[in-house]
């Protein structure tokens, strides 16, 4: 079951299943707590270890520490936008190779190109998404990452 722990670095949510070491580790970042909760449930149910981040400002540190296999982030967030975050991650050698999936409600062609160029965001999921299509996307991205590594 989900438990929300108050830690020094903010809220962290962990599930019991995430302790299994061989499962792929996915970090999800969104400032919408309900979305975070439901998305974590979807992913956990499909056998992923999930690190859910509510405060985007802390993502970079945690990512360096936990080294997730994939980060899913919302582009529009309160503290630090998805673009900034992606840029930060892409430009640090520790996190450079972590693949990113961006979730967005509405974006324009211009924004898309900017993302591609600057932040290394190669994958986009449009809101609202069918859980199945997200899972399929995750699987394909992880597969590709594994191949490249």
């Amino acid at each position, binding site marked *: 079951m989900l438990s929300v722990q108050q830690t020094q670095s903010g809220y962290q949510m962990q599930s019991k299943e995430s302790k299994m070491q061989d499962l792929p580790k996915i970090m999800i970042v969104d400032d*919408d707590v*309900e*979305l975070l909760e*439901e*998305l974590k*449930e*979807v992913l956990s*149910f499909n056998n992923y270890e999930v690190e859910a981040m509510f405060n985007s400002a802390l993502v970079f540190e945690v990512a360096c520490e936990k080294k997730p296999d994939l980060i899913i982030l919302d582009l529009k967030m309160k503290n630090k936008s998805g673009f900034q975050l992606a840029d930060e991650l892409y430009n640090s050698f520790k996190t450079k190779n972590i693949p990113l999936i961006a979730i967005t*409600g*509405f974006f324009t062609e211009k924004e898309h190109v900017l993302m591609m160029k600057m932040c290394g965001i190669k994958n986009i999921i449009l*809101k*609202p*998404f*069918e*859980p199945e299509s997200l899972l399929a996307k995750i699987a394909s991205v992880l597969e590709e990452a594994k191949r490249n590594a």
Partner: protein
Amino acid sequence: MNVDRLKSSSVFYCIAIPVIAIIYYWIAQMSFMFAWRHTNVNADCPSSAVGFIIIYIFGQRFWPGIWLGVFLVNAGYYFSNPSFNLFQVILFSIPIATGNTLEAVVSSYLLKKLIGNRNPLHKAQDILRFALMLMVGCAIGASMGAITVCLSNLSYWNSFVFIWFIWWFGNFSWIFTLTPFFWAIGQRPFSKVDLKRILEFVISLSVLGVSNEMVFNDRFIISQMHIPITYFPLALTVWLTYRFGYWGAITSILLTLNQAFQGTSKGAGPFFSSGDISTSLLLLDTFIATVCGTCLLLAAALYEHRQAQKKIFLSEQRFRALVENNSDIILLVNSLGVITYCSPSVTRIMGYRQEEQVGHNILEFIHSEYEESIKIEFSHILSHPAEVIKTLVRIRHKNGSWRWVEGSGQNLLRDTSIGAIVVNYRDITEKKQVQERFERVFESSPLAKIIVNKQGKIQLVNQTAEVLLGYPREEMLKMSIDDFVPERVRKPHPAHREGFHKSPKVRPMGSVANLSVLTKDKREIPVEIALTPIENEDGLLVLATIMDITERKAAEEVLRNELKQATRLADVGTLAAIVAHELRTPLGVIQMAAHNLKNKNKDLAKDKHLENIQKKVWEGNHIIDNLLSYSNIKMPIYESCPILNLLDECISNVSNQFQRLDIAVDKFYKVPQGFVLEIDSNQIREVIVNVLNNAYQSMDIKGGRIEVLVQRNNDEFLQISFKDSGVGIGTENLDKIFRPFFTTKAKGTGLGLTICNEIINLHHGRFDIQSLKAQGTTVSISLPIQSKIFKQQ
């Protein structure tokens, strides 16, 4: 140093006085040496002439020289007489000197007073005046001289009158005879060196000399034959005067004078009376003076005549030059209309030689169109002497072209110096062409043009102005420009006009904003006005060019509305995008929550509810999609598009999707294949596809049909109608169909027709739906054939 300053310098004066005295004295001594030494009275006659000449020519200030000269001569004369002592010599010489000097001074003063500075030889009257003034002057000299002589006991008082007369007449005749010679000096005897004339002059003078010898010196054989030839020299002198003017007169007189004096003093000739030499010389003097007077008068009269002739000649030449070089042609026409004279300018202007016109009737050259009017005018001229009649006709040029001429005629048949009808005319073809061109440009201008004088009165208007202001031309020509100014601003308008007249300069269109004119039906039309000053013979006129900007104002209004609509669309679009984005996030979460619940649910009865949630989330998403596409409607980007091709393309695309329904599409295209509309083809494609989709979807059974009709509605619109045989729309729904989110379909957002309507509206077209339940629906799209936007451009 020039002559005038030399004359007026005192050094010259001091030298001149004794020189004059010496000259005077010397000439008098010369006279004594001549034969007439016997007489005492005539002695200083030639020198008194010199005195007069000097005073007359050089001025009265030289009188002391004369006085000194006379004094010396007389002093010498008295001194040679031993009966006078020195005191007496001086005593008697002084009055004679004074008298002779006064004689010269008074007569030259009087003459100058009468005739000024002109040469006395040039006018017969002046010769007469000269003689009269001399008579007056000489009377003074003669009186003083005769009194002195008698007082000095040189003569007796009983001979005073005789002495006085001899003195007076001697001085008079000598001055009268010799002075003209000095006046003639400086005037050329011949106008040009002409050998023939010089020869004639020399021969004539020689003949005169010979005849003088015969007459006065009794020379040659003929004089001894007692033939009376005394007056022969007179005839010769007159002849010389006639031929050579005053030069002829003067030379012949001087020659005669010389010979006659020599002869007479020797005792020869007709004037010698035995005994008294004084009487003989007096007779001779009389003769010479008479001849001299006659010839000088004749010479002066001839001179005057020649001057007058020269003047006439010059003025005639000037007049001729004027006539020949005039751009007017002058005709003299007799009472029958036949040309009797034609000025030479006709060759230059009309191409005819003078003789080609003279003798012909004027009607031969005038265009037949004007024949009648010319005949009437001609008879008017004949019956109204001296009245000037003006006319405008066409005359044939020698080269066959017809020239416009402006002419005037005046009946001067009664004027004896002319005795004809005088016709003046000038070629104004070019002027008329320029004028016509101006009138054409003025008249056909698409802008209203009005010409106004200084008082604001309308002089000329064109047709556009008539149409714009609504008044007929004749009425406008009686009106003032102020009448067209709207009443609320009419009062200050005359002052504005006067201000413009004070400093007239071109005022271009648009320099004053918000102008309007008042039409006959009291409408105010927004206009722009340009003002141009025009200078002509009637003074300053002003050309007002008026441009009706009603349409432009309307176009501006349309553009403003477009802009408003675009802004509204943009606002709606932005709002919709924000709302859609914001809605999508919670919808996504709901979807995931339902998904998760379904995964965890073991109760199949609850599954149905979860599925409902998922379904409605999907529908909500669809609504958001439509909303976004509605908000995405942009202003059309117009391009030329062959509308039938677009229609075919859409029909084939849509019918492919609905192949299974087996629906026939019948096309009725009533415009040519390449018919082009100015539209945004992407937007119109969307509309057509949407309408076709609706039509297909309305068919509930197989084998339905759709008719597509394309036709011109009128000149303005192209109508595309789609008639289906579907279920139709009930009347209760028909007026709601364009409302956003209205739909009767199970699946559908209700935004399709709203978007279509919006697009067609943006194209300035019309979107109509006619439908009856169960009888099918007809959708008509009317699009403007000429885009409104294009019209404005």
